[in-house]
């Protein structure tokens, strides 16, 4: 191991990698404001990280790596701008509109550049897939190749998607700012949706390598933590962090050692991450205390009730059902209504739930949704209507690609066929 200036190469490399993970968003967000252009900002930030390797080995690791990197990247951006002044002045730049006529009072409230970056990446004028890609690249600093792998597209496709989105930001002058109070709830919802999508992409793993997927989950969690540190008073940010924590607390128990999917009822509750569940619970309580609960806080509350119950049967299903009723009010989605039938079956029995489910099945938006036949099958199974249950399990299998889920459904199908017409007709 070589040393220079008393700092070992490995220590410097470790510090740079660490700063990349922790400080990327901070450095890029501040540099973008000076550069007025995301491409130039990215370039300068990359260069700053590269020059850190030499500079830190020579002069020692700075006390505030983020500040060092930001100063270096900004200086590089200013150099480029000076060199290319004539050319660059003709290019559209990121618009800040600080102290402009609209919402000026609210804009002072959140001065951190990282928030501007997040809100610009998740601007509603960008397609959602572009929002997700930009957030991963610009906010998380994930390489284009890794983003492409996570979303199962070629690196070329992902690079084109990112370029198109950045071009739209500058050509259409999507402003580099945090929206004012009047727009904040809607715009924040778009940000939370992107982070949640990042998480579920990692969590549900339709396919792809495990490693990349686990990283997505961690990135989503740290992104939400960053957002919460920047917007500590937003109950929905707390709600999302709580939801991710409590859901992730069960990560290790979602499959058995053979990779077979375990439903909530079968999971080993003693192996759940109690610290994460407790942190989630505190966040939910905090969110509810504000009196402004939205869909993420409500979903987190439901997840918390599950996480805290001694067993599936001991779950406070009445309260779960009540929370689903509230959730439907703020988020009238057919998927929420469908999930509510599971709680309904535990409070009022499988027949009441099945009646409700058949009403929901008329909604075209649920056509092709694999959990509709899966839940129908389970309710029929519990009612002892095994032949109908078997048919519903087959329908669910037709719609499911995930190997672990297919195996689960196939096992249930086999059990239903076993208990079906052959046996029950005799009795």
């Amino acid at each position, binding site marked *: 191991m070589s040393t220079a200036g008393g700092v070992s190469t490995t220590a410097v490399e470790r510090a740079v990698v660490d700063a990349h993970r922790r400080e990327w968003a901070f450095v890029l967000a501040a540099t973008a404001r000076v550069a007025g252009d995301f491409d130039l900002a990215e370039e300068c930030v990359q260069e700053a990280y590269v020059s850190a390797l030499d500079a830190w080995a020579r002069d020692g690791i700075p006390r505030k790596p983020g500040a060092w990197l930001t100063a270096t990247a900004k200086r590089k951006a200013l150099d480029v701008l000076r060199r290319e002044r*004539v*050319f660059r002045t*003709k*290019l*559209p730049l990121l*618009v800040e*509109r600080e102290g*402009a*006529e*609209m919402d000026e009072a609210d804009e002072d409230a959140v001065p951190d550049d990282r928030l501007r970056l997040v809100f610009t990446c998740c*601007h509603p*004028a960008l397609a959602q897939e572009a929002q997700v890609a930009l957030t991963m690249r610009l906010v998380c600093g994930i390489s284009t190749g890794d983003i492409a792998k996570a979303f199962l597209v070629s690196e070329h496709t992902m690079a084109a998607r990112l370029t198109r989105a950045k071009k739209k930001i500058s*050509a*259409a*002058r*999507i*402003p580099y700012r945090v*929206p004012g109070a009047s*727009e904040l709830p809607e715009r924040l919802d778009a940000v939370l949706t992107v982070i949640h999508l990042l998480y579920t992409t990692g969590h549900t793993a339709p396919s792809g390598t495990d490693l990349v997927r686990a990283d997505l989950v961690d990135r989503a969690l740290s992104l939400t933590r960053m957002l919460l540190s920047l917007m500590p008073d937003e109950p929905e940010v707390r709600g999302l962090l709580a939801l991710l924590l409590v859901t992730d607390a069960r990560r290790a128990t979602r499959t058995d050692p053979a990779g077979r999917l375990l439903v909530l009822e079968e999971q080993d509750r003693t192996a759940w991450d109690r610290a994460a569940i407790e942190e989630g619970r505190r966040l939910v309580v905090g969110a509810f205390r504000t009196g402004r609960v939205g869909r993420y806080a409500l979903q987190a509350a439901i997840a918390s009730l599950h996480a805290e119950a001694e067993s599936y049967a001991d779950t406070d299903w009445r309260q779960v059902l009540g929370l689903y009723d509230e959730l439907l009010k703020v988020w009238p989605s057919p998927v929420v209504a469908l999930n509510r039938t599971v709680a309904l079956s535990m409070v009022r029995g499988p027949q009441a739930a099945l009646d409700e489910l058949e009403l929901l099945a008329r909604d075209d938006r649920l056509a092709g949704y694999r959990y509709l036949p899966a839940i129908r099958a389970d309710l029929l199974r519990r009612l002892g209507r095994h032949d109908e249950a078997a048919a519903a399990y087959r329908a669910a299998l037709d719609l499911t690609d995930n190997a672990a889920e297919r195996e689960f459904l196939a096992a249930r199908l086999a059990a239903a066929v076993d208990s079906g017409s052959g046996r029950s007709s005799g009795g």
Partner: protein
Amino acid sequence: MAQYGILIYSPAPADPTDLPPDYLELLDRYPAQVEELGGRIVTGFALQPSTTATTIRGGVVTDGPFVEVKEVVAGFFVLEAPDLDVALRIAKLNPATRNGAVEVRPLFVPPAE
């Protein structure tokens, strides 16, 4: 300030003499709302109904708009606004969004050499 082309799409044939009174009333109020939101209409035009359009493709001249669709371009204006957020706020208030659509496109400014 940036300039945007605001394209107004309305149900065919988008005859400006056929606009209902309540639409005209909203249209009357529109310029004041644009100013209030921080924008400025540089220039704008309504078009005659799409039944008066003639399309040339290659060397072939045909009667009507260039594609047969339910909605046609009814008019357009050039809007000056500080950024896309302001432009979108202004576009959202246009009465054409009720039964048609409004497209916001930045104007192309050729780079200096």
